[in-house]
């Protein structure tokens, strides 16, 4: 019995400090200094409606937009996940075939590998710079703009995710599409 009350006291102390106190301090610091990202990096339109979150991919099917990587959860922001398919799975091959058809890929103009593979979270907001340039022709045609202008826009929105520690540059698809809508009505 003595040990039970002792354990209870320790439990209460640790809950008070590590759950209540710790959460409160972290919350306070985050909301005070980085409220925008702390609340989910939400992007609002001019009229105040939320159009998405910057690090969270959303679905794009229109030819006038750039398309992100495939998502095993159809870009569900409240139920994220990957395909968990074995790399030899025929499901992956089937999915790849439909993506090849969608992007109009040919052996001469092969689809960049990440556009055929689902991300771990299903919400990966990035594609490589090459994968974005790959789609430039389609986007340009759909919007009646020259490929060169689209490519320039892509290049202006690339970043190196790990500075000099990463070799490939990536593009945030949502940011790119927002820029497309903003710059080219």
């Amino acid at each position: 019995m003595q040990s039970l009350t002792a354990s209870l006291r320790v439990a209460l102390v640790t809950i008070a400090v590590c759950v209540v106190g710790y959460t409160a301090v972290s919350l306070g610091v985050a909301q005070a200094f980085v409220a925008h990202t702390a609340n989910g990096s939400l992007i609002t339109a001019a009229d105040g409606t939320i159009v998405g979150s910057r690090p969270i991919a959303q679905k794009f099917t229109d030819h006038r937009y750039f398309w992100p990587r495939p998502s095993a959860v159809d870009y569900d922001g409240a139920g994220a996940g990957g395909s968990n398919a074995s790399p030899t799975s025929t499901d992956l091959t089937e999915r790849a075939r439909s993506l090849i058809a969608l992007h109009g890929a040919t052996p001469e103009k092969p689809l960049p590998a990440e556009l055929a593979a689902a991300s771990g979270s299903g919400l990966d907001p990035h594609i490589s710079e090459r994968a974005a340039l790959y789609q430039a022709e389609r986007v340009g045609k759909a919007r009646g703009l020259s490929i060169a202008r689209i490519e320039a826009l892509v290049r202006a929105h690339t970043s190196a995710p790990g500075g000099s520690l990463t070799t490939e540059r990536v593009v945030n698809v949502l940011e790119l599409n927002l820029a497309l809508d903003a710059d080219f009505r």
Partner: protein
Amino acid sequence: MDALLLATLIVGGTALLSLPLGRYMTWAMDPTGPAPRRAGLERLFARVAGPLGHEQQGWKQYAIAMLAFNALMFVVSFAFVALQQHLPLNPDAKGAVEASLVFNTVASFTSNTNLQHYSGEVSMSYLSQLLSLMWLQFVSAATGIAALAALARGLAGRPEMGNFLVDLQRATLLVLLPLALIVATLMALGGVPMTLSGAASATTLEGVQQVIARGPVAAFLAIKQLGTNGGGFFGPNCTHPFENPTFWTNGLSMICILLVPMCSVWMFGRIVGRPRHARLVFAVMLVLLFGKIAVAVWFETAPTQAFAALPEVEQVAGNFEGKEMRFGTPYGSGPLWSVLTTCTSNGSVGAMHDSLNPMAGLMPMVGMWLNATFGGVGVGMINMFVYIVVAVFLAGMMVGRTPEYLNRRVEAREMKLAVLTVLAHALFILVGAAVFAATPWGRDTLANWGPHGFSEILYEFSSASANNGSGFEGLGDNTVPWNVATGLVMLLNRYVPILLPLAIAGSLARKRRTAESAGTLGVQDATFGAMLLGTILLVGALTFLPAAVLGPIAEHLLFAQQS
């Protein structure tokens, strides 16, 4: 190759960081000598622990106190999760959690495993995540650190092993809490959300509704990594852009995964008074770690096999399935993280393990089978201690001398306990996998057929027994058989590998100190290091090689045959 550069930076950087932090951790857990600033705190800890707080415990009392407190952890958390639908801090109105899932989840977090047969943002309220799960992440990690301190004190020849409730407070409040505060702040600054507001609802550019779950992620994330817990706030764990937004948070997480396990080795060395021995053990662990990283990275450079027959898809280095772009090349961070997280019994993931190439997917399994390449906080070094006892015994037999460790003779009694510890881990994994592979309990839940399906089952039991918590997540593991079986395995193989080594230390402590002589087998030189390495590999290989052949190796051979 930049993948190996990344690995060297992370592992090397964390090792450097662990030197001063290991010293701090020793001071926190084992203050010896006059420490006036500390005396007030120690009195407070003792008072909270009640009239028993001043009691110095032998191994048995320490173990019972640990079990009693952990049982309370289980009960308290169980209550909060089971009643979450009636409790506050539930902005997204999460409903009741099914009974066997409550059992599995609470057993999982109590045992520092954090196996998740649920998806956080789908099933858990904020209160459950914070009050039950995050609390358990603190105190289960602290339990491991305390157990190691006790073991070390016993081996150091002290008459008593300490006081569990006092040790627990030290570990929670002096070690884990400050680190967690720092890391949570850094993560929040790095873009990880930290809010109590419910999910946000967005209308995408194409006019589709997208509900975006968020929450108090930064706080949860910090202690999840530092305490080698591993349970994600979100289902896909650290592949989720909110749980791991950038390359830099990715690096920070990996450092946190490895940090306290590395510090544990230093703390052990300091308490037993054998710093050179600790350095040797650290080196052996590094050798195994880098070996696994190299193999995982190498095999993950092969492109996704499913696309091999499709000329319309680029065949470039790296398997992108289950990976995120912001972390660099797919054969870089993904496999590196998978090795770090499974050798430390952490279990968080930075890429989907079910989608790793077969031999790259084998490395996480090896990490869990050995469970001593740094291992979990505190308990990793305890596991290594068991291997050391076996190695010392084997070495002694080979040269015809009485085996001894730290000036105590290692005899049949200690060996029996050590072998029992190793066998328990092996039996839980192999018997469990066999039963589930042979019955619909496992077969009906597979996502992938063939050897990969067997791998999914094998992985799940390995993860439960090793208290890891990662999984080949295609497995439909939220069933009553899986929940009960893994729940029991997680609890049993959490505490048995703490109890038996504590008993070994208790038994050794009762013996007379033997004097060092010219014939004493040293435990701090390269020869012993090689012996230890060999023992670990021998025990691991003999026990688990057949299972590995049936799963990942068979899959790899099929894989290689097709290309």
